[in-house]
């Protein structure tokens, strides 16, 4: 007897998403990938095998019901799919764009054993965009007020998630943001061409419509301390202040004019819109720009430099491409746009002219030695191999430390020797009662989605601690 059971056809190749041409896009700030059409989304959704025991859900830090929302797309119910995603993730248009899906849901997709995994990120992005473009945003039911006030410090991914979770449960939620615009790293850090600010604005508007209040221009630790906020009637406070303090190389010449931290370079471009014609906040538009570092922020900086008019944009990284912490897709995009890579190369000194402006970067070549604590092979300098790169702007993108403002103003909060706040990874509780923390301020610089996962856990603890229920 032959097997009569109907077998699903397995398509090993993913549906590609069209992108702006590299030559064109490297001169504009518009988004690079263009998104799926409805037909493309359905085709991609149909590739999902709807596993009985899906691994993707548990590998998503906020546990989105991935097969369920994909099944709805396959049926053409895009509004339903969007609502399904939003049950677990209040910011899908953002996560669909900036999550490292290859290390999470897509990394464990059963299809990836033989071919391409289902493009979960692209599909998440598609439903969120579809909902927004069709004005089909559905607002979930908000429970009646429970009389408890929660303050959230920082309006980045962690804070926004806590706000979204708690406002639905009937909490009175206020976010305090230090800058004049909310969104944290989503607005000052990640560039327009990777995450359009209009989308961030819409997702924040969505939370405001649910009842979340946002106080901009409010630096907790300066404008008011946590204790003062408790005195003003807050029952619980969540600290999601991120890793915003730039690390510098500590090499000679680093304070020359034209040396920027990636934070400053990106903030001037993204938040202050230095790329616009009538911008009032300037940024030095280098002709030859060198970015130091190998992470996503370094790629963002090097690609922004091209868009700000650089003839050449060069990345200097002390290890090899294999060790680069940036997502493969970002490295690929950077290369397509013409960013050059000087790998196994470590800066020694920033050279400047008599007026203090950058004129070059002196580097030494490296080779890989024995593995270090991180398991990556340690780069060792090759004696006598130093050389100069001529350049007029240097961007330092080698990482960020936690911002110390809260800890300084509130010494009863325990911190680690790295300056991060000590908080339980499972529930976000800190050493101070009714103070919770999550995101980069606890883990050190990490990803948007991990911060959101932490926000979700902290929101659960706040609910339990204030209402005595789960």
């Amino acid at each position, binding site marked *: 007897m032959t097997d009569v059971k109907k077998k699903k056809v397995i398509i090993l190749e993913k549906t590609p998403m069209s992108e702006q041409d590299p030559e064109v896009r490297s001169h504009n700030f518009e988004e690079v990938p263009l998104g799926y059409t409805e037909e493309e989304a359905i085709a991609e959704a149909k590739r999902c095998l709807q596993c009985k025991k899906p691994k993707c859900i548990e590998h998503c830090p906020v546990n989105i019901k991935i097969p369920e929302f994909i099944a709805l797309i396959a049926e053409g119910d895009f509004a339903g799919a969007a609502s399904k995603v939003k049950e677990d993730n209040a910011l899908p248009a953002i996560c669909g764009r900036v999550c490292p899906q290859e290390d999470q849901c897509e990394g464990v997709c059963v299809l990836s054993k033989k071919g391409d995994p289902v493009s979960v990120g692209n599909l998440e992005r598609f439903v969120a965009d579809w909902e927004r473009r069709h004005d089909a945003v559905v607002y979930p039911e908000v429970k009646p007020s429970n009389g408890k006030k929660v303050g959230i410090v920082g309006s980045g991914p962690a804070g926004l998630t806590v706000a979204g979770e708690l406002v639905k449960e009937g909490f009175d939620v206020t976010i305090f943001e*230090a*800058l*004049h615009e909310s969104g944290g790293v989503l607005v*000052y850090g990640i560039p327009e061409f990777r995450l359009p600010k209009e989308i961030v604005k819409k997702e924040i508007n969505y939370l405001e419509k649910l009842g979340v209040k946002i106080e*901009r*221009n*409010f*630096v907790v630790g*300066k*404008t*008011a301390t946590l204790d003062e906020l408790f005195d003003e009637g807050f029952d619980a406070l969540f600290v999601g202040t991120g890793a*915003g*303090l*730039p690390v*510098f190389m*500590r090499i000679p010449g*680093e*304070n020359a*004019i*034209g040396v*920027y*931290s990636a*934070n*400053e370079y990106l*903030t*001037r471009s993204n938040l*202050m819109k230095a790329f616009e014609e*009538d911008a*009032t*906040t*300037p940024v*030095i538009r280098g002709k030859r720009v060198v970015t130091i570092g190998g992470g996503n922020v370094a790629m963002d900086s090097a690609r922004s430099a091209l868009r700000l008019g650089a003839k050449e944009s060069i990345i200097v990284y002390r290890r090899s491409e294999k060790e680069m912490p940036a997502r493969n897709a970002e490295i690929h995009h950077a290369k397509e746009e013409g960013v050059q890579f000087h790998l196994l190369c470590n800066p020694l000194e920033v050279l400047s002219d008599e*007026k*203090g402006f950058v004129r070059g970067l002196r580097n030494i070549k490296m080779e890989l030695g024995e593995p270090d604590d991180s398991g990556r092979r340690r780069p060792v300098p090759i004696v006598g191999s130093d050389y100069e790169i001529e350049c007029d702007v240097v961007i330092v993108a080698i990482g960020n430390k936690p*911002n*110390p*403002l809260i800890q300084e103003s509130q010494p009863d909060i325990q911190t680690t020797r790295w300056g991060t706040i000590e908080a339980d990874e499972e529930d976000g509780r800190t050493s101070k009662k009714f103070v919770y923390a999550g995101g980069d301020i606890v883990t050190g610089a990490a990803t948007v989605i991990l911060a959101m996962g932490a926000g979700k856990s902290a929101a659960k603890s706040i609910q339990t601690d204030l209402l005595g229920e789960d």
Partner: protein
Amino acid sequence: MNDILQKEQLSELVWRYRIDAPRIARKRKAGQFIILRSDEKAERIPLTIANGNAEEGWIEIIFQIVGLGTHRLAQLKEGDTLQDLVGPLGKATHIQNFGRCLCIGGGVGVAPLYPIVTALREAGNDMTTIIGARNRDLLILEEEISAQSNHAYLTTDDGSYGQKGFVSAVAEQLISDGNHYDLAVVIGPAIMMKVTTGVTVGHGIKTYASLNPIMVDGTGMCGGCRVTVHGESKFACVDGPEFDAAGIDWDQLMNRLNSYREFEEKAIKDHDCKLGEVS
């Protein structure tokens, strides 16, 4: 929110705004600053708080029109609301009874000096003040500063008022005359601070200078305001704005203040051209 309660012209280019800001008024201490934006497209401008009243809920800022940003700020009228105002930022001046203090202000730097003079005076110090400006019209807060001083001196570069010459020369004279000071505070243009702290530090007086480097966020995020103090890179927004003058790399600070000179000049030129088209 953050309405301009009073607007007063102190000299041709210098304005004083009293701003409704109850939270900042309550928290601010001498030496701290705010960042404001005058309108939706404006840059973020850091300004030291010149005065404040916690009960009445206002602060005062004093600024000189130097570029397009301050020019736009000066266009606002009484009753207008600032687009954005955040603070108080930075570390407060360390205030205690040191004994005899010498406080020196130059140009619009006299404004941030005022709350420090007041606080030091209230802490019981004997206060000597020297304030100066290019000419009589640019000299500000003469009465206010004098009222808080045991000994007050005035200079103008052109001799149109007070002693002719620089504040640094008066400082040199007072010290050479045998006056002893336990602490000096110097605020003004970078070159004035470099020269003047050179005098006080040279005579072994512990001296603080309040620095005004270019900054964006004011909370430690951008690192644009880094200055070298005793060989170490510091962020003026969170580690300062006051630093031990004996260790400040003045030449680097002055270089970095020129980072956007070309841009500023072009912006002002473009702005003037547009005004020309209108009229």
